[in-house]
């Protein structure tokens, strides 16, 4: 019986300890970020390319089909109330406020997050981070900060691309497949989508960008330096990011409504 309590105590202790270390880690990244942005923009641009530009294809393909399926579902359900013309509004609100940021964050975790953690984990396993330490170069500043900042910059841009392509996909499906009037589609959308809705989406995309990049970099940096460890860190990045993004999405929505 006592050992159960001890296990629970140890687990809680360990969790609090890890969470504290995680926060300190975040502060360390934030502290170095401005200087790296000014002094070494090249490093950050390279990471925006790695995390952002290289994710564009999957983001665009997924955006198109998510927009398309929303149009199909929206049309089928709205038709019951003879409100087919509002399909543009429904799709736009769903994409801008919810699905754009959330699905982009999940795809980002799968494509860019895993690449980041496995890259950093392998650098650790092959002593590259120690070698930098020995060359008096701070690996947190040189390796982690550009990757973190690159991810944070990329995410809102990816969300914007995802949402636009999604709207385009919805337009294609609604107008060409379901014969919704193209004027009604866009005008209804313009009338009912508010700047506040867009702000909510942008805010979420920034938060998810920070969370997804931070978790990827953290998992990579804390990898157990073996082949197995790198694999496990990569998996954890996806799983934890997905959970964190979905919980945060609920919390932000609840607060902003």
């Amino acid at each position, binding site marked *: 019986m006592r050992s159960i309590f001890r296990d629970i105590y140890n687990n809680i202790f360990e969790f609090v300890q890890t969470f504290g270390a995680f926060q300190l880690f975040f502060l360390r990244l934030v502290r170095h970020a401005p200087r790296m942005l000014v002094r070494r923009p090249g490093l950050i641009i390279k990471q925006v390319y790695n995390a952002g530009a290289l994710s564009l294809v999957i983001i665009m393909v997924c955006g198109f089909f998510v927009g398309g399926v929303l149009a199909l579902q929206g049309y089928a359900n709205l038709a019951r109330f003879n409100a087919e013309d509002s399909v543009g509004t429904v799709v736009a609100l769903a994409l801008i406020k919810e699905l754009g940021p959330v699905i982009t964050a999940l795809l980002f975790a799968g494509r860019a997050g895993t690449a980041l953690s496995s890259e950093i984990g*392998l*650098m650790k396993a092959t002593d590259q981070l120690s070698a930098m330490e020995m060359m008096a170069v701070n690996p947190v500043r040189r390796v982690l900060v550009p990757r973190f900042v690159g991810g944070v910059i990329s995410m809102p841009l990816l969300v914007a691309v995802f949402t636009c392509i999604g709207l385009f996909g919805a337009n294609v499906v609604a107008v060409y497949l379901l014969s919704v009037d193209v004027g009604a589609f866009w005008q209804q959308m313009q009338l009912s989508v508010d700047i506040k809705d867009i702000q909510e989406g942008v805010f979420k995309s920034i938060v998810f960008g920070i969370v997804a990049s931070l978790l990827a970099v953290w998992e990579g940096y804390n990898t157990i330096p073996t082949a197995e460890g790198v694999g496990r860190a990569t998996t954890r990045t996806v799983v934890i990011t997905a959970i964190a993004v979905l919980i945060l999405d609920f919390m932000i929505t609840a607060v902003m409504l």
Partner: protein
Amino acid sequence: MEADSENLIEIRDLMYSRGVRVIFKGLNLTIKRGEVTALMGPSGTGKTTLLRLITRQLIPQQGAIYVNGVDIATLNQRRLYELRRRFGMLFQNGALLTDLTVFENVAFPLREHTKLSNRLIRHVVLTKLHAVGLRGAADMSPTELSGGMARRVALARAMVMDPEILIYDEPFVGLDPISMGVIVRLVRRMNDALGITSIVVSHDVAEVSTVADRSYLISDGKVAASGSPDELHAANSELVRQFMHGMADGPVAFHFDAPNYAEQLLGRDSE
């Protein structure tokens, strides 16, 4: 800081354990300025750990390590990085940065720490690469290199800031005889020509003997013997003889602790 004594690095009563395994129990050793010092010992004695302690990638649990008379455990990060700029370290596997070319790997410390022009960096890097015979590989990626070539690039990188202290972690493992000869001579020549202090960790007795001024044989968490290679070869201690001559029987057990061989193979299962 600039205490110009003869002893560059002094290790006093070093204790270090990882988990339940005690790695060092009261290790004392001195590395003299301008010499090539070899740290030898059976595998698993913590030679690499010792290097990490000397460069403060790890911090000793007890005892102290003095570099130039300064206890390195007391340095803050800025001072530590200042100190590390005077170190050059060659890692066991090279530890080249895989997202940069060979040229950029060697140029890395220069780009991070100096404001030299690209032209000058090019000159310095190509000279160092030429010294290790890999000027032609400048544009290759580290992943295209063999293990031995990667180590030679790493050596060029370690030399590029003209360090005072060069640390080699197992520099001779996996080199073909030609590169081995070149590297051994390079270690010696750089030490003498540039007035560097070198620390070589190795268990390659024959190669170390040709290059080292002084060797420390580490076993069981302590210095078991020290002296010039000739002195070690002539030593009477059983442990030193076993190690220097590569004998299976002696104080250092070749077998890891295990139950009785015959009983385990022939005895009935306890179930």
